[in-house]
């Protein structure tokens, strides 16, 4: 019995860690640029396809090392210029938030169908990052899961460290808290906007690679991911990094336990009920600021 509970907790943690990686990027973008990025999920898929192209058709040496080393700059550039070219021009308008939302929604549609047009509708599977399982007494872990867990947690930690201990990180926070103030002290606001967009693209893109090698590259995945990340940020508090981290873990756990005790079919409704109730009483989410 105890072992089973442990099992459930573990799968909760595993989900949670991945969700965190997914959600925090979104929280960051919203927190800093105040833009609703509906195309977020499409960068998850982009990551997956990037890895696939490198590993399967091109089959480059170095395997996943090459992939990560190249994916990070690639995703950065993509995110950076998308912001500069598509979102930044909207900022002049008073209703730019609404416009940005519409634009990114269109963009996501474009990208998702674009993937199908380029790579076909079928799922693509990536080679495992590591094979086999690790037995600790009665508990069994897939090495894959462990890698994902470790990478996403360490990714988050180093992200948090950058945010709180580097000049750039402080600048990002400054823009998030008060764009005008940031401008006054001479922080290049627009570049920070683009940079955050890029960083979030990296986070979700890497998440895409990690999960796609466990499951698949699926051209349809993006909406699901967008919604998941979005639910978590909403629950944790729009723009609150810490909030999203907690939210991700809570929801990961909730899913595992509901799945175990009530059945998989009830997971979605449980999560969304939790979200709605939370929002009804605390519209700014767990740790969001009004």
């Amino acid at each position: 019995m105890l072992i089973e509970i442990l099992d459930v907790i573990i799968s909760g943690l595993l989900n949670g860690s991945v969700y965190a990686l997914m959600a925090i990027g979104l929280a960051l973008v919203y927190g800093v640029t105040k833009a609703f990025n509906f195309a977020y999920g499409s960068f998850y898929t982009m990551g997956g396809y990037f890895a696939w192209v490198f590993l399967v058709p091109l089959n480059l040496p170095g395997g996943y090392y090459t992939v990560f080393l190249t994916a990070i700059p690639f995703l950065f550039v993509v995110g950076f210029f998308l912001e500069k070219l598509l979102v930044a021009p909207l900022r002049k308008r008073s209703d730019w938030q609404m416009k940005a939302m519409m634009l990114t929604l269109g963009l996501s549609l474009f990208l998702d169908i674009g993937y199908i047009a380029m790579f076909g509708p079928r799922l693509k599977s990536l080679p495992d990052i590591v094979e086999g399982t690790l037995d600790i007494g009665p508990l069994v872990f897939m090495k894959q899961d462990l890698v994902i867990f470790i990478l996403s947690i360490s990714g988050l930690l180093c992200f948090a460290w950058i945010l709180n201990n580097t000049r750039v990180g402080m600048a990002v926070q400054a823009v998030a808290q008060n764009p005008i103030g940031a401008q006054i002290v001479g922080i290049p606001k627009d570049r920070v906007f683009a940079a955050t967009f890029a960083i979030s693209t990296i986070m979700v893109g890497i998440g895409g690679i990690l999960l796609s090698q466990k499951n698949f590259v699926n051209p349809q995945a993006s909406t699901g991911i967008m919604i998941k990340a979005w639910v978590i940020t909403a629950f944790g508090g729009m723009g609150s990094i810490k909030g999203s981290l907690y939210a991700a873990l809570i929801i990961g756990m909730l899913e595992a336990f509901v799945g175990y005790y009530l059945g998989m079919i009830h997971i979605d409704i449980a999560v969304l009920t939790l979200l709605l109730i939370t929002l009804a009483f605390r519209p700014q989410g767990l740790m969001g600021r009004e």
Partner: protein
Amino acid sequence: MKKIGLMSLIVATLMVMGSWAIAADTIKVGCAFSLTGDYAGSGDNYFKGVEMAVEELNAAGGLLGKQLEIVMFDNQDFAPEVVMQGADYLMDQKKVAVVVAGWAGAGADVRAYGKYDVPAFLDDGSQASVDVYKEDPEKYRNAYFMTPVAAAQGSSVFNVLQALPYDYPNKKVVLINTDDAWGGEIGAVMAKRFKEIGWEVALHEIVPYGTNEWGPILTKVRRIKPAVIHFEIAASQEPITFVRQFLKRPTNTIISLGWSITPLEVVGTLGKKADGVMGDMPAGMPVPQAPTVEAQAWLDKYKKRYKHDLGVGSFVTYTSFMAWAEAAKASGDAYDFKAVNKHLKTVAYKGLMGDISWGENNTLHPQPGAPMTHYQVQNGELVTLFTDPAVTPYKDNKFIKPRWIK
């Protein structure tokens, strides 16, 4: 007023569309498959069957002296509204002579295509669809199901599981299926059959599409240690992730993936990992060795044409389409739907593996020409163990005890 200008322009374009409708020196063939969305894999299988048939006929000078032309429609994920649009688009706007719509959503498809007389081949004999058909068999006579009803399918799987040369360590079964009509019905009938012979349905889990984390269910499975798990989710990623995560710490359990074995990705991705996994296809073709010379020839041609193993859905669409073509030939005019339907209903078609004919409620009940086929994965490819009618061992293929069973 500029707007009036633009309005009239739009009107004009609308008119043009209307006029497209009729333009026939080719016979139009409607394909309403899932090109995008979770079922795109199965859509691809179905399409290849039709494509081969059309190429074959066109190469032989077409049908009734006319070339065949494929018109595609994306059924996406079978939202009833979309299916409805598809029917109207293909049958009303494009004036196709036949529609092959793969798996197309529990009943909605019958309603949508039943509005017209154009023969429509639908791959979903779920009770839901058949119920709709029964409402007005006369009206819906142009709807042909390319499967038996789900219940028959479920029983067949049950019979096969009982016929396996293998002694189950216990009498516990775990059923996992989706909450849609097909999955639900299979799950229900198998639960019933197992209970009848005194087995315990230790867990009957209903899961939504898109489930990829099986932790909670597998935890239960590992406690239950069932002798059989039957898994019926008509998509490809769920079964793959399930098998992978099951194998992480397997129990002494026969895994039967049901229809879920058929999307190419499943065996393609799992490869030898999947050895020992069972599965089935309603109206399938036995592989790797086909039962007849013609079938074998066709199989080789298929592999040559598409450079991959038989996508099991392809056979049934190919055969159904050929059956239609013959009916059209017999009635002398592909657009004389009354005659074509009559022919399809009354005259059996000699398929690659024998006669096929649509029986009660226009379902394709198990028959030698289109047998229900039961596979096991061996050496990373599908191998037919049994064919139904009359669960009979196929050739001398032997059931292999899955390696994870101690």
